[in-house]
């Protein structure tokens, strides 16, 4: 059987599984559509949350990001996991106790204000729509590489599958498909990693392999890696970075993670408050299986690639272009890997040609510039081929990448559609709509959101990559602080919260636009995006915590000068602080 048929079979089987689950888990009520009837087992919810959270970026890009610079990008590892501690301790149990369906609904009730709720809906939609674009483009890439179809055909197929289970099953269908998608993606991610770890270090557990001895060289793997990358003019893999930038960026990712609505609503699906706490722990366990493997994949893949190019050591001549391995040929076709023979010697020289200290060595060796550019995303996708694993593992990577993209997309789409049908239609525009009517509106909103996401995926705005920074920055600066104040303070009132959210939202947007261009349109930035121009040296991608701080300051300051919230709101805060009575609120 050829590779193409194998990929098609494995991806097809995974899609059939998702659709089978959708038919089994149809939603019959709004409680099922919005919150899976609050009947999800906390361990299952942990798995679904892990799939919901781990996007195409986690699955495909993260190992490559870490491989590229090493220690400095540990910020992604800490930032994207540390947010779960904030969720478990500061938000999830209390929002589960509140016992409603959407994040803006809590903000509207706690701050007794339709205006606050509308601002929250706007933040939610901006965050979720920008995030969903990345997922759709990720799915498109996986389709075009592994199934050799046009990106647009691939996208329509992906949308059709999401349509079936998200429109039919709502949160209920999404939850159980996410559980299946987690299983697919974690198997796909870890199998190649285990083989590579055994090949390089003899240790079958990749996170342990990362700190083990390199079998051939007889020195620790990381020491060997530091040696070869510095010998090619790159910075040491374990070398130090700017402490301020790392701290702020990690903080931005952590707070942003805790403020993402599609993650928060997952905790509405468990039966009890205690389950919401356990569930956050299980989610992090399942996430950690991938996040502990990723840095090992990154380091090992980088070492493997350098060894492939310099089979006799970096001091010796590089491999001849005609002798390059098959996986390089495969990936050259996609354009993600490029070779240009600058000095015409027919060999592939790969080194850091921007390092001033290395130019002399390069000239001595007759090198005239780096000849190989490798897109970070290749590391994970080509891993099975680099490790010469059987064809079914390659098919599995395709299914895993698609599972990661689709599971996150579905979670985001649910956050968007429930906010439209519940916050806007049911509780604002058509208050006396029937249960059946609301369920229909929810399904239509879901279908509409899928269509918009697909169209945006087909014509991704040029700024797609930067919008991720926007999503995290806004979640950190708007949603997270207002939720935290709603739970931990009885004094913050409607005007304080509304102004706080707007301050966080607007100032964060302005800071991003100043360096990245108005609405991310290239060339419209007012200042060049270089560290010398940053306010107190803060990069735009790490501005989230500053926005959050301003949000807190504005909300507390204004609340202190205005009237305290009414008695019934203070009682609401007291009631969400204790678990007892959680079942009653939802009619279980």
């Amino acid at each position, binding site marked *: 059987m050829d590779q193409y048929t194998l990929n098609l079979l494995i991806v097809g089987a995974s899609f059939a599984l998702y659709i089978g689950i959708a038919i089994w888990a149809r939603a019959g009520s709004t409680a099922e559509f919005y919150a899976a009837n609050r009947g999800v087992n906390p361990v299952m919810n942990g798995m679904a949350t892990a799939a919901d959270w781990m996007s195409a970026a986690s699955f495909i890009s993260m190992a490559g990001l*870490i491989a590229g610079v090493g*220690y400095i990008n*540990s910020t992604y*590892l*800490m930032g994207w*996991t*540390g947010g*779960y*501690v904030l969720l*478990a*301790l*500061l938000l999830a*149990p209390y929002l589960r106790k509140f016992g409603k369906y959407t994040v803006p609904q809590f903000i509207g009730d706690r701050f007794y204000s339709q205006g606050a709720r509308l601002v929250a809906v706007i933040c939610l939609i901006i965050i979720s729509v920008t995030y969903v674009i990345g997922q759709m483009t990720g799915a498109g890439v996986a389709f075009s590489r592994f199934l050799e179809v046009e990106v647009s055909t691939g996208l329509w197929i992906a949308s059709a599958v999401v349509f079936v289970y998200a429109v039919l099953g709502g949160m209920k269908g999404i939850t159980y498909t996410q559980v299946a998608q987690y299983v697919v993606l974690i198997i796909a991610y870890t199998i190649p990693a285990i083989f590579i770890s055994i090949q390089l270090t003899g240790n079958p557990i990749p*996170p342990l392999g*990362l*700190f*083990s001895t390199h079998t051939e060289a007889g*020195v*620790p*793997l*990381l*020491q*060997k890696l*530091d040696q070869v990358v510095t010998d090619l003019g790159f910075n040491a893999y*374990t070398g*130090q970075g700017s*402490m301020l930038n*790392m*701290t702020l960026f*990690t*903080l931005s990712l952590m707070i942003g993670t805790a403020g993402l609505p599609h993650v928060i609503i997952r905790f509405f699906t468990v039966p*009890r*408050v*205690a389950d919401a*706490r*356990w569930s*956050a*722990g299980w989610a*992090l*366990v399942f996430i*950690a299986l991938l*996040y*502990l493997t990723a*840095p090992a994949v990154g380091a090992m893949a980088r070492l493997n690639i350098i060894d492939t190019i310099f089979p006799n050591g970096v001091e010796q001549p590089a491999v001849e272009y005609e002798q390059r391995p098959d996986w390089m040929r495969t990936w050259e076709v996609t354009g993600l890997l490029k070779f240009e023979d600058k000095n015409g010697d027919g060999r592939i020289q790969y080194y850091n040609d921007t390092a001033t200290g290395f130019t002399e060595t390069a000239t001595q060796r007759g090198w005239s510039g780096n000849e190989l550019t490798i897109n970070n995303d290749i590391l994970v996708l080509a891993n099975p081929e680099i490790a010469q694993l059987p064809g079914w593992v390659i098919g599995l990577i395709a299914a895993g990448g698609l599972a990661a993209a689709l599971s996150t997309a579905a979670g985001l789409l649910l956050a968007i559609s429930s906010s439209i049908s519940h916050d806007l239609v049911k509780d604002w525009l058509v208050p006396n709509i029937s249960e059946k009517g609301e369920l229909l509106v929810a399904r239509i909103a879901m279908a509409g959101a899928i269509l918009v996401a697909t169209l945006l995926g087909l014509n991704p705005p040029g700024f797609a990559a930067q919008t991720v920074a926007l999503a995290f920055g806004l979640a950190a600066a708007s949603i997270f602080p207002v939720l935290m104040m709603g739970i931990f303070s009885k004094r913050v009132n409607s005007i304080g919260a509304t102004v706080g959210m707007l301050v966080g939202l607007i100032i964060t947007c302005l800071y991003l636009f100043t360096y990245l261009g108005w609405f991310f349109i290239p060339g419209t930035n007012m200042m060049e995006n270089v560290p010398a121009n940053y306010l107190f040296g803060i990069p735009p991608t790490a501005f989230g915590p500053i926005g959050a701080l301003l949000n807190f300051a504005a909300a507390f300051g204004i609340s202190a000068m205005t009237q305290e919230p009414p008695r019934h709101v203070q009682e609401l805060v*007291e*009631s969400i*602080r*204790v*678990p*007892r*009575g*959680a*079942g009653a609120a939802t009619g279980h």
Partner: protein
Amino acid sequence: MADNSSSNAYWAANIRIITICLVIWAVVSYGFGILLRPLLSGIPVGGTDLGFWFAQQGSILVFIALIFYYAAYMNRLDREFGVDEQ
């Protein structure tokens, strides 16, 4: 819910454990993983230093332990104050 002073004591105990957990959360990631890494550079771990290990693995493992510890602690506290879900 029980009377007011008991519910205040419950909330105060919750804030206390949250604060302790978040101090540990910050020390392992921002501390050992980033700011205090130079201080830990003398402790070798598999070809590099302890700070690198905390940044890439240690902090994640501590995060998991923190969440499970907090969940167990709060379950006990809920029962003690009679505010658990029956």
